[in-house]
């Protein structure tokens, strides 16, 4: 049973403040943070861009942001917003479908097809048997022998609970993503075969997408949009050729990712924002979801609207008067979060430990100390100089090391009408290695 928000006790507060669950659109805990994040409303911006795209062209948008900045919440709102604007938006959770330790563009394309097939079934739209059969046979011929196919189907029933009532294509796609995810040696083989037949694969895929779009239009939809979330979580590793796994997917294979006949939104790792080639591959500027602004760029002048919005993020979940010894403690946590919603949630959780009747100053200070220790652990000695530079200059030099600091949230990015700036996470100011060098 869902609790009634705001909750009244410390134990309920722990469960109400979950740092990892993206809120579904319409959740009572949702607080619009758009205006305190530099003004742009992601759902509105992207929907407008799509609406303005001339027929026959597709809008391809990249979105990024710090881990836990509320990306997934925003993308789920985008899906709702697009549906309200009559776009058939398909939300693809890459984390659930793909092996993020090892992703190629082929895995992404296969995942898109799979989710489309599923979403259409939900709408009672059936793809013409001929097209399904084409792709089906293509998979059957290229990828699997009949015998392997039966093996896969048996395995599927066991692993995924996908029964025989599912149409063949969905099963086949599940089999492909299933195998791609499972990390078996078969994956390499499947990819090699897909690669060799890529042109045919993309053509078949697009025949399916084109057909789906026609059917969707007949049902009154404006068009189809894919929202691919979670790709920013893919593992970062340098590759022998000097690229990284990140640039290999988004830069080197941008053409393939863009080859699908549909509007598409991909999330990308924040480490790529400095990659100049990404801008060539995807000409529309990458949308960055910044942290909530809680001070002006000088770091001293408080920005009340941002602070109040984050206070509300807590107050929507937790009855501050009942659970906190004083309201000041929430303000303290808001400051310590640096404007990161995830860290605010985590701080609330940490403050619950050891508290019985209510959260007192000692619990809040302990929580802040712990967050400081966590960030201290992420920081390497050779990061110190760059962090001090950023603390002084309030900007991030465009290099790989900065990308790493952003990725780990050691450095936070902010935005407002005057532009973008950055600062080190306030928790770092507690670190014995930094506190004497950057000031409180």
């Amino acid at each position: 049973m869902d609790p009634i928000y705001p909750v009244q006790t410390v134990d309920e507060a722990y469960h109400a403040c979950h740092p990892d669950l993206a809120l579904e659109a319409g959740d009572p805990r949702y607080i619009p943070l758009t205006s305190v994040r530099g003004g742009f409303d992601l759902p509105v911006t992207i929907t407008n861009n799509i609406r303005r795209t001339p027929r026959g062209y597709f809008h391809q948008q990249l979105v990024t942001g710090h881990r836990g900045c509320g990306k997934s919440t925003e993308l789920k709102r985008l899906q709702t917003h697009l549906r309200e604007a009559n776009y058939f938006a398909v939300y693809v959770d890459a984390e659930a479908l793909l092996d993020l330790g090892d992703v190629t563009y082929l895995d992404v394309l296969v995942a898109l097809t799979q989710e489309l097939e599923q979403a259409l079934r939900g709408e009672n739209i059936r793809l013409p048997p001929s097209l399904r059969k084409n792709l089906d046979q293509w998979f059957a011929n290229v990828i699997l022998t009949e015998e392997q196919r039966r093996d896969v189907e048996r395995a599927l029933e066991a692993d995924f609970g996908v029964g025989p009532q599912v149409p063949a294509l969905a099963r086949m796609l599940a089999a492909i993503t299933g195998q791609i995810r499972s990390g078996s040696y078969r994956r390499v083989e499947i990819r090699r075969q897909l690669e060799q037949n890529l042109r045919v694969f993309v053509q078949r895929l697009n025949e399916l997408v084109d057909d789906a779009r026609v059917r969707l239009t007949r049902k009154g939809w404006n068009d189809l949009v894919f929202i691919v979330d979670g790709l920013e979580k893919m593992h970062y590793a340098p590759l022998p050729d000097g690229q990284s796994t990140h640039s290999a997917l988004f830069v080197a294979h941008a053409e393939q990712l863009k080859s699908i006949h549909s509007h598409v939104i991909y999330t990308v790792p924040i480490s790529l924002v400095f990659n100049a080639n990404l801008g060539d591959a995807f000409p529309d500027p990458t949308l960055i979801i910044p942290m909530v602004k809680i001070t002006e760029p000088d770091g001293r002048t408080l920005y009340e609207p941002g602070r109040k919005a984050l206070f509300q993020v807590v107050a929507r979940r937790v009855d501050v008067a009942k659970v906190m010894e004083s309201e000041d403690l929430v303000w303290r946590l808001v400051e310590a979060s640096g404007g990161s919603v995830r860290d605010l949630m985590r701080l609330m959780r940490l403050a619950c430990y050891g508290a019985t009747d209510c959260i007192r100053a000692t619990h809040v200070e302990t929580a802040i100390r712990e967050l400081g220790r966590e960030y201290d652990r992420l920081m390497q000695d050779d990061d110190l100089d760059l962090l001090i530079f950023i603390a002084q200059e309030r900007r991030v030099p465009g290099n790989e090391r900065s990308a790493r600091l952003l990725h780990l949230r050691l450095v936070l990015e902010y935005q407002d009408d005057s532009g973008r700036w950055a600062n080190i996470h306030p928790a770092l100011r507690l670190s014995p290695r930094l506190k004497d060098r950057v000031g409180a």
Partner: protein
Amino acid sequence: MEVAVQPIETLVVVDDRERLAHALRLARGFALFFVRCNVPAYRAELVAHLKAQLARPVVEVDLEGEPDAYPAVARAAGSSAEDAVLFVYGLEHHLPSGDPERAQQTLRALNWRRAAYQRLGRPLAFWLPEYALAMVAREAPDFYDWNSGVFEIEVPQPQREALLADALALPDEAEASLPVEEKRARLRLLEGLWEEYRGESLAERQARLQVALKMARLHESLGDYSQARRLYEESLHIAEELGDRAGVARVLHNLGVLAQQQGDYGRAWQFYEESLRISEELGDRAGVAQTLHNLGVLAQDTGEYSRARHLYQESLRIAEELGDRAGVATTLHQLGMLAQDTGDYGQARQFYQESLRIKEELGNRAGVAITTAQLALLEEAEGNLERALELITRAEELFAGLGSPYRELARRVREWIQRTPALESALEEHHSARLDPE
């Protein structure tokens, strides 16, 4: 963000044990916790206490010896009660410092299997030493970022002291002959203590120095020379900070031994001379004698025989004055080798026999074995094959009894001797197989 933060030290903080217990009570379904506990021996005590405190089942999973982390955790979760908490130990064994490829694989798997861990639907507490936790934080940041609490458990003072005393109790020589597994277990305890003793007080830093030295010697005896050197350098740093000159001299001497073992004679010479200078200043005669002896070996190894002889004689003189019989026996053996190297077999035999006599009196079996083997080579060189065979067979038996790796070498020498009349080239091989003293 400029936040007026209080210095950490002045905060009134809630104890992490209490917070951990509360977190484990609160967690429903999936939750990820990290518990930093550097000393497994203390962990067992704490877990027993937690189990008694919690009103829910605790399932313990030890990953040591498991090929892969996730399947082991999933298995344990699958067979556990719905409200069970899982304690996962030993992830550090999947993050070996000597095998970065393996460590990377483990970390990558953690990062992308986040969702799979979540689907287990149980609170997971990973118990890790500090260094492994830092690796997870930096190299699997997405996984780490999911945590709902990192609890840092410090071993209480009395337990910590007891563990330290335990870890330092065995003398280095006795420790050097322990089985490999036993050495590794001791290293793990020492690594934990190394993380625990981080305080600034004199006592803490002194303990840290002892722990580092002990770890260095263990690594050295396991043949992990780069680890040993890193730890000796760390020890040197601490000893210098403490103003512990005797400690500095001792560490420099050990660094010299290490460099010498790796064939870096130039550096070895520098370390020894520096050590010698300090020992002389401090009037540490025993230290002086030891370092002179090693300088002699170094000179001998580089063919400077007269210099070597001079250094040995000086070392011998001091050892005799101090009544250091073990030192005397070792240097006599070395003088024997020097005489043998320069073709003075008669004198060599005298030195060896004298060394052997003392070692037998002292019950130094390893020393007896080495000198006996060296005597065998001498007899063989003089053509006394029967005597040589008799001696080498005895040395081989002694080495076997000690579990020494020299046993194999002695066996090969015995076989050569048995074949000698037919083999002219055997002589050369004997020289390359010359046995160095302890």
